[in-house]
């Protein structure tokens, strides 16, 4: 397409401008101190003047061109015979667009074929106009830039200012992402809460979004069983596995292991954290869950399900071990050596020192680490999707199948979906709850860690 071609032309022009400006600036050089900026900076200054306005123009034109094409096509006599029903019309137009770019594409509506020629013509016409416009802007920008090349011109300052703008824009991307997350979650969840009352959502105990039956839609969206499943799997079962194992690993690595041992064991433990969650999920479903089901059956449980809170929680706990371990490692390392020296000098053994002095001193850091671990566990998706189950059970039996917030988000948004139904929108409400809870856990934990570090500095 011509607009893509013109982009290349603009970059080429930028390159030419860079060399031209640098060459001209070199001619101005008459000796030490005769110029403010090195010639290359004049080159960059010129290139920026060519590229930035032209790219802006390109962006604007790309955004408005489809509208212009549309207008021209509908004004074409060929469009007069088209049906007016918006649904069919939309389908026809989109098929015509496909045909225009790829003649071998299939079209179900024969009317689409009539539109192909007008679309091609309009695209060619407006593409050419846009390309010319962009080139004019590029040349004008370059011309202006070129006239500013003088010995005393502060090209470097100008270029550095542009660099700063770029740096700042990159940093603002993070804020933009945060706004994007909050904005989209709040907006979509808001649509959901138009249909379902927030109180029913947060306090109801019955979750069956698929059923359209029932007098009151509120009765089908009680998310408490989901919250309970999430907490039971992520914050209870997983932590029962991860806290003792992670903490004791950290104690051994920091207090007992020799340097060489630590050098080998620590990265090996970190491999556990690097394994993709989908692999853990498969491991849970393939190996751990059947083991637990057999165990449940041997305990006399009737019809135990393959999916259980225990299977998901256990595997999630294993996944979190290195995380807890490295947080505890940091917390223990932050306790000054003088503290354990003081205890050892009194004649306490190493384990007494660890249990009575080091761990209590490191406790705030460890607690913060556990909070971050919980936040990670409750946001974990694949393990529960593959091993926990879909049934919204409000049960304390670890062998029962249980569902979680993340599981339901996946459930609501995969497969065929009508976008604005309460069922799909509920995923965003769940996402909002998940986001807020993990955010609070993270903020509190980071505060605690910060204060803890300051206490020992």
């Amino acid at each position, binding site marked *: 397409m011509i607009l893509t071609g013109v982009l290349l032309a603009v970059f080429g022009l930028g390159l030419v401008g860079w060399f031209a400006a640098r060459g001209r600036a070199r001619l101005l050089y008459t000796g030490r101190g005769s110029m403010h900026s090195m010639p290359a900076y004049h080159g960059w200054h010129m290139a920026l003047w060519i590229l930035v306005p032209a790219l802006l123009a390109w962006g604007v034109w790309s955004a408005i061109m489809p509208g212009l094409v549309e207008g021209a096509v509908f004004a074409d006599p060929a469009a007069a015979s088209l049906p007016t029903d918006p649904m069919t019309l939309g389908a026809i137009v989109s098929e015509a667009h496909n045909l225009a770019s790829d003649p071998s594409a299939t079209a179900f509506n024969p009317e689409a074929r009539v539109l192909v020629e007008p679309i091609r013509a309009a695209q060619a016409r407006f593409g050419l106009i846009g390309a010319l416009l962009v080139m004019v802007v590029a040349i004008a920008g370059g011309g202006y830039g070129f006239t500013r090349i003088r010995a005393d011109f502060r090209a470097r300052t100008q270029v550095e200012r542009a660099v700063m703008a770029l740096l700042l824009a990159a940093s603002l991307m993070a804020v933009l992402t945060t706004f994007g997350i909050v904005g989209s979650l709040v907006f979509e969840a808001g649509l959901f809460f138009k249909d379902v009352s927030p109180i029913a959502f947060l306090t109801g105990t019955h979750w069956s979004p698929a059923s359209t039956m029932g007098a009151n839609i509120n009765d089908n969206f009680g998310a408490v069983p989901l919250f309970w499943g999430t907490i039971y799997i992520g914050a209870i079962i997983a932590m029962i596995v991860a806290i003792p194992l992670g903490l004791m690993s950290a104690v051994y690595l920091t207090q007992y292991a020799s340097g060489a041992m630590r050098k080998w064991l620590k990265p090996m433990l970190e491999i556990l954290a690097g394994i993709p969650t989908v692999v853990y999920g498969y491991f849970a479903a393939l190996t751990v869950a059947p083991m637990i089901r057999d165990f449940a059956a041997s305990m006399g449980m009737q019809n135990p399900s393959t999916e259980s809170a225990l299977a998901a929680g256990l595997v999630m706990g294993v996944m979190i071990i290195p995380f807890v371990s490295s947080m505890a490692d940091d917390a223990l390392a932050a306790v*000054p050596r003088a*503290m354990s*020296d003081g205890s*050892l000098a*009194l*004649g306490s053994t190493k384990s007494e020192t660890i249990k009575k002095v080091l761990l209590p001193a490191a406790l705030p850091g460890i607690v913060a680490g556990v909070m971050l671990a919980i936040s990670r566990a409750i946001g974990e998706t694949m393990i529960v999707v593959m091993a926990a189950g879909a049934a919204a059970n409000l049960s304390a039996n670890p062998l029962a199948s249980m569902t979680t917030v993340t599981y339901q988000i996946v459930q609501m948004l995969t497969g065929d979906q009508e976008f604005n139904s309460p069922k799909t929108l509920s995923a965003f409400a769940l996402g909002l709850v998940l986001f807020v809870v993990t955010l609070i856990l993270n903020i509190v934990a980071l505060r605690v860690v910060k204060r803890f570090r300051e206490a020992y500095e």
Partner: protein
Amino acid sequence: MTDTKLTARNVDVFYGQKKAINDVSIDIDNGIVTAFIGPSGCGKSTFLRTLNRMNDTIAGARVDGEILLDGENIYAASMDPVALRARVGMVFQKPNPFPKSIFENVAYGPRIHGLGSSKADMEQIVERALTKAGLWEEVKDRLTDAGTALSGGQQQRLCIARAIAVSPEVILMDEPCSALDPIATARIEELIDELKESFAIVIVTHSMQQAARVSQRTAFFHLGSLVEYGETDQIFTNPREVRTKDYITGRYG
């Protein structure tokens, strides 16, 4: 009334390949304060830490030679470092109270060693130790406050009380006043003077004035060797070695 408490014979200390202490032999007596002086990095602190095997806690540290506590080799296999450190206590450069209450700081040692079985026993041990460390009057009404909430000087006296509470025979002090202001320092020095009645005290200091004020015997270390050891008065007024004299008169250090 001087009798020998600790005897070191031909002690070498290595950190990995590096020799930090070279062939030191010294007798440390009961009932007096012995000061180790010398320029920084001369090995005086390292040597001090061999006397209760605190160097064991540093990876790669090795001690050769013999150190006897009442005639018993403290590096013998039969000597448990845990029991040894209960007999040879230590106070560190920077006050290092545990992040626990004042009471618990002092009671920690007796508790792990099984001294004092009842609550009343423990309270008595804590009171006695705090009194001996001259801190009782200042803290008796707030024993449950955090030890870290005390002033620097008080913290260091708390650490001394903590060491005393285990009823050691020797107390090693590693520059115990270097982090304190002059008033708190004076207070600790007075305390050291009182404590020498009950314990053999070894103090490492880089302040010659402090060594002269508190000690009866002084050992001068330089580059990992013991250069001169004698009565404090003699060391400061009439050193036998040129290096000692140069250090005392401020030629280097």
